[in-house]
């Protein structure tokens, strides 16, 4: 007895314990195992790093630069990159570095809002269809399939045109076209869960359908849905930037990256930095989300290997 210590000696041991003493320990232990698996993949870690830097940029924007993203200095138009203006200045003499920093806020806002709209819709539609089955399932999945068959960008374009240009409407337009895969995914997960013993036990104890869906099925659908969402982030960012580039997303003078590429287009041949640097930012961020999502999928879904 004296050989087995009652209390683990380090955090690591506590986290990797074979027999967790509490729910909390089990949960943290699982997260820790996932983290260790993710850490083994250098690409996924660099993806995570890019996403973290994006977050930091968005949060600490005013501390990272002393300029304003809107201040025009017409005497310093189209300056090449220099010590004073790291990424140069645009056609109105605004500092591009500053605008990139502040633009990260818009990118993150779009990603956050689209997720906040798409996740609940997908989860609710999918779990209801999967849990109840029958005609409700048929109808909901028909509607999902119809939306799934639409070309995303063109649909978002048409919606954005109907609702009017603007970042909020772009978010709505992207969300309308983005939710169906999540409903499909949540439905598939629910179908495998609904016949399990613990669901039957809950039902026999008198739990309502709402309770079963909300507190038993949805939490178990979350991991696969979130992995899918991470992989989709890049697509969302690209569509938002594309709408901005076409003039249907964020409006001037917003420092949205797609819009910045679009306004730098006229100066492309002589002042390359105005259009190319914001585009590079879009690429790096969506690349980061893709790397992270790819790594997460390997961790959570070993079948894909």
């Amino acid at each position: 007895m004296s050989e087995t210590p009652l209390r683990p000696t380090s955090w690591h041991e506590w986290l990797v314990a074979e027999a967790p003493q509490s729910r909390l320990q089990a949960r943290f232990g699982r997260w820790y195992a996932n983290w260790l698996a993710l850490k083994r993949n250098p690409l996924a870690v660099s993806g995570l790093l890019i996403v973290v830097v994006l977050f930091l940029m968005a949060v600490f924007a005013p501390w990272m630069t002393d300029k304003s993203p809107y201040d025009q200095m017409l005497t310093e138009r189209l300056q090449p990159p220099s010590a004073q203006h790291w990424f140069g200045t645009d056609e109105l003499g605004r500092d591009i570095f500053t605008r990139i920093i502040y633009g990260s806020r818009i990118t993150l806002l779009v990603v956050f809002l689209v997720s906040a709209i798409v996740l609940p819709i997908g989860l609710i539609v999918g779990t209801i269809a999967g849990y109840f089955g029958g005609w409700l399932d048929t109808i909901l999945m028909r509607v999902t399939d119809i939306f799934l068959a639409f070309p995303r960008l063109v649909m978002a374009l048409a919606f954005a045109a109907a609702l009017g240009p603007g970042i909020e409407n772009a978010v709505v337009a992207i969300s309308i076209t983005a939710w169906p895969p999540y409903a499909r995914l949540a439905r598939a997960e629910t179908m495998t869960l609904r016949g399990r013993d613990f669901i039957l036990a809950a039902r026999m104890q008198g739990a309502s359908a709402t309770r079963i869906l909300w507190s038993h099925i949805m939490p178990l659908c979350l991991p696969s849905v979130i992995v899918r969402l991470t992989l989709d982030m890049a697509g969302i960012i690209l569509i938002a930037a594309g709408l901005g580039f076409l003039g249907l997303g964020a409006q001037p003078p917003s420092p949205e990256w797609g819009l910045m590429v679009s306004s730098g287009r006229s100066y492309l041949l002589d002042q390359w930095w105005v259009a190319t640097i914001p585009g590079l930012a879009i690429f790096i961020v969506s690349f980061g989300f893709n790397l992270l999502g790819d790594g997460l999928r390997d961790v959570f879904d070993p079948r894909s290997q």
Partner: protein
Amino acid sequence: MTTTPAKPPAGVRRSRASAFAWHFIRLISTLALTFLGLTIVTFCIGRVIPIDPVIAVVGDRASPEAYERVRMELGLDLPLYQQYWNYLIKLLHGDLGIAVLTARPVLEDLMRVFPATLELATVAIIMGVCFGVPIGVLAATNQGRWPDHLIRLVGLVGYSMPVFWLGLVGLLVFYNTLDWVSGPGRVDVYYEDVVQPVTGMLLIDSLLAGDTGVFWNAVSHIILPAAILGYLSLAYIARMTRSFMLGQLHQEYILTAQVKGLSRSRVVWRHALPNIMVPLITVVALSYGYLLEGAVLTETVFAWPGLGRYITSALFNADMNAVLGGTLIVGTVFIGLNLLSDLAYYLVDPRAR
């Protein structure tokens, strides 16, 4: 005594034919339903636009009587389901309304611009397949080694690329700096309208007319936008080829073939590849659809007079008939591609029957 291969009894054959018919009918009804959904969505978009169609006709100084009269003429006083019904009937007669910008029927406009997009997407998909499939096979046969990692990275870069930006950088490098390709547009100005349009696809038309000057000029214009679109589809095609190929390479018939002494390349290309053709067809059809979509942004960058540019320029003139008509066409092509890939699946793969 010779054994003749046993013919399947007539009943079996008939039931197979009827199974196919049944499958086909179900497929068609699903697609019809999807198309109906598409029209409902475009109808709703047309209704929620903030522009009052009546005021667009009579102007904002019209008397209430005139306003009311035009409203009735446009059928806007009818209940919504009846308005939708009228819309649907008009659609099925090919009436998509009149485009404000060109003052011509939208369908006519779309027929004129669609071949340009089709040409671009087709050249792109050919590039995507020609490079994507071998790359995917290479990744699968080198699973876990550096070619696999490199190809995975190239694919992820493709997924993360803002296509409009890649187009601009491509123009900057290959047109402006290196001068390897021609700039925006389909042909140089002095080659425009030289050949008689037959198919509307310049590459084919110029060959039909025997005008190699136009042909090579058109090639130098299409190569960059098509390569950029092709890269995007390459990423998807290579990734899917890799995973299909891995599924085959782990099967026992591959091992058998290798044990019998066949070379590695013969096993891969002659034994495994035919078996992944079927899912690959679906992937190619799907990425063809995505290319039509990607063309919207590429065409804007390259001033390519196709469907994407038509839709975007209509957007800025608040020409909703043209926008919705274009959306409907792209959606219909999408649905049609789904149908084709499903049919191909059914016809090529005996297991699907």
